[in-house]
């Protein structure tokens, strides 16, 4: 009796996600109706336009890529107890190093790209490692330091954009503040003809599996998870906790740095003000929605990428203001993140119903059978 009861209540995460999505779409529909537009048409446009041509599918996966990479970095950080809020800054630092190397050194393409990726991993990881060292050695809260370092990174990029790497150094008069563009040899190769999908997309799709393997099948991953779950028990068991914090912080930042590299080498080729568009912050939601699971984070990134990409089509399709679309995106993400609350609430409802039923059965069976055998 007890076992069946718990099995009945065990709603899978998937059905809850579907419920959350439906709830979000419902709220979004209300919003669109308030804006005096047709929600059904809006949603139809969103899906249809995103998937209608290979070129458009390519645009969508390009949007997914930075979320997948930075989200993965955040997920591994959170798993290891390193609360990295600094993906934004790490993306910027990765992008800056990519731009510098992409413009100022000249190598044959495969080598050039490889060097830039490696350096991007190191600079992004190194930027995060600053917070890692402060946490491991001095016990400084990484939430604060990673967040603060974002501002440092933003203003550092500002310096390069208007200063030494500005387009002005080529003699061109800039229309808006931007840097020089990277050399062709530094650009990511395209993977599908007729689309802008680039090498970074492949990495974004494969790395989650690599990281999953790392976390669950290697000693290093085991230790990272142990430290994240219970640092005291990990320490007592002989795991070097500060070393693990340093490792986790580096890996977390490196993946975010790679996201920055991928944006520069694959999509933008130069930097302008605000080029990161808050990806680093959105990726926190990506990782959280993905349950901090590498594969889950990938799925979550696909959802975010599709949503943000598709919402722009919807904006044009049914002609609603951009700000309304922003609210729509916010509503949907909020609804997805509320899944745990829905789960709790629905379970409570189901339990209540079960209990009243049970009491009824118990009362009707009181005189007859014993319930204990």
């Amino acid at each position: 009796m007890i076992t069946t009861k718990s099995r009945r209540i065990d709603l899978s995460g998937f059905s809850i996600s579907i419920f959350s999505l439906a709830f979000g779409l419902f709220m979004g529909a209300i919003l669109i109706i308030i804006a005096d537009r047709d929600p059904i048409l809006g949603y139809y446009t969103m899906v249809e336009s995103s998937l209608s041509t290979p070129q458009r599918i390519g645009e969508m996966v390009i949007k997914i890529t930075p979320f997948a990479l930075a989200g993965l970095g955040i997920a591994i950080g959170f798993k290891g107890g390193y609360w990295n809020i600094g993906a934004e800054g790490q993306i910027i630092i990765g992008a800056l190093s990519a731009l510098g190397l992409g413009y100022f050194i000249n190598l044959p393409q495969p080598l050039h790209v490889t060097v830039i990726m490696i350096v991007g991993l190191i600079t992004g990881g190194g930027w995060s490692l600053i917070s890692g060292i402060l946490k491991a050695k001095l016990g400084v809260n990484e939430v604060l330091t990673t967040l603060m370092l974002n501002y440092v990174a933003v203003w550092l990029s500002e310096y390069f954009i208007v200063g030494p790497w500005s387009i002005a150094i080529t003699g061109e008069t800039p229309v808006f503040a931007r840097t020089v563009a990277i050399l062709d040899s530094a650009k990511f190769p395209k993977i599908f003809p007729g689309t802008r999908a680039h090498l970074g997309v492949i990495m974004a799709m494969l790395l989650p599996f690599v990281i999953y393997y790392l976390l669950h099948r290697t000693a290093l991953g085991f230790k990272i998870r142990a430290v994240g779950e219970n640092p005291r028990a990990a320490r007592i068991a002989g795991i070097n906790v500060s070393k693990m914090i340093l490792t986790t912080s580096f890996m977390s930042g490196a993946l975010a740095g790679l996201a920055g590299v991928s944006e520069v080498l694959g999509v933008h080729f130069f930097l302008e003000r605000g080029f990161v568009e808050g990806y680093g912050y959105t990726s926190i939601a990506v990782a959280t929605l993905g349950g901090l699971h590498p594969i889950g984070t990938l799925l979550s990134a696909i959802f975010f990428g599709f949503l943000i990409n598709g919402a722009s089509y919807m904006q044009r399709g049914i002609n609603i203001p951009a700000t309304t679309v922003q609210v729509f995106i916010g509503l949907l993400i909020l609804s997805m993140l509320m899944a745990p609350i829905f789960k709790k609430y629905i379970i409570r409802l189901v339990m209540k119903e079960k209990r009243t039923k049970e009491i009824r059965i118990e009362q009707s069976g009181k005189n007859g059978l014993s319930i204990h055998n």
Partner: protein
Amino acid sequence: MDEESRISVLMKSIVKSFPGILANDNIDFDLRVGEIHCLIGENGAGKSTLMNILDGLYAPDDGEIFIYGKGVKFHSPRDAINEGVGMIHQHFMLIPNLTVIENIILGFEGSKYISLRKSAKKISEFSSKYGLKIDPYAKVWHLSVGEQQRVEIIKTLYRNAKILILDEPTSVLTPEEVDNVFKILKQLTTEGRSIIFITHKIREALRIGDRITVLRKGKVVGTIDKKEADENVISEMMVGKKLTRIEVSKAELGSKVLELRNVYALNDNKILALRDVSLDVRSGEILGVAGVSGNGQKELAEVIMGLRNRTKGELFINGTLTNKPSPDKMREMGVGYISEDRLNDSVILNFTNAENMILDKIDSWPYSQRGILKINPIDKHARELIYAYDIQTDSPWKPTKTLSGGNIQKLSISRELSRKLKLLIASHPTMGLDIAATQYVREKIVEKKKAGCAILLISEDLDELLSLSDRIAVIYEGSIMRIFESEKADLKEIGLLMAGIKRMD
């Protein structure tokens, strides 16, 4: 007196189930007027459940209760006390910031107006009558554990309890205090009160009980008179099989594996917790540390393990001075640690059992090779430990948080003992384990000793310390009072030292 009136409590075919377990399975129990009836059994045998039913905390699923021949149905402890049944719980139900009087009359004020003086007078009467020395106006947090227990006893007497239930009352007391409590209980029975005494210590049951009822797995195994009982009979009834006495041979003592010289350390509140501690443990030796908990045992273990800094003094492992000890360095040197806080210190609740069992061996062969986990050896290791320690779980790959407390303890102990050890720090290794598991863990510890491991055994169980240790150090307020050779140890003197009393000789 006829038969009926000589019985104060009669419980008939009591049944109580919790999700997944049948805690009380058709239990019959009776208590005679003026007797001390011991209820003995392993953890999870159903003793506390049965008594919580009698105290009105739980409602039985089935069965009847008679108090002095009258059928009763309790819905709360208040109902129980109205019929004269009072329970003294293992964890005292006192409010530290209130005075003794306030605690005693709390919830039993009688009227809106409280006369503290009247109450104090009544309390003093009890105090002098039963030798329950207590200051009615003292704040409870000022009192020692023994004194707090006296307050609990007075509290039940104040509520006119004729039937007293004591749940493991001696577990927190020094031997001296135990003697005192036993005297008081005897006196209470001479006045017609009846007492149910829950314990899992056989010797205690034999000392205090008139009759002894043994429970096992929710059923009554039998009730026997004190005259017919001895240790073997009871332990056999409790476990269902004969216990083998552990043979502790004098092992060859080797070199000093652990040595502390004049060590000082602070506790978490920055108060001096270890004062000038000097001791050593040789290979093949078990050094027992006796003391009432909270006297620096935890800090001692943590200092050795490198979890806590020492403020002064020297620590030698295998003859080499360790300057900045850390748990990973200690483990590399072959030190194992069974922490007293197994839930927080020893396991990761969200990890699977198999993962927790290799927490300390993750980098070593055969569990990982070139950094890659080897699932088969990990699985095999887990299955072996689950079998050997009889850990109740469906699978090695179930999260450890699904295990019961006792099984989590077995898991963490099994992991520590499955290492190659030069030094083992064992903090209360058998606390909370049932007899069979206790026996197994003790045998394993002795096995380690025979293999040449040096063992620092911290325990509150004097029987355990005396039967396993070669030497016993008594710790009190962070100081080592004295170190005895086990054969020459005098229980009485150990008790006095544990209470901080140094004999003048």
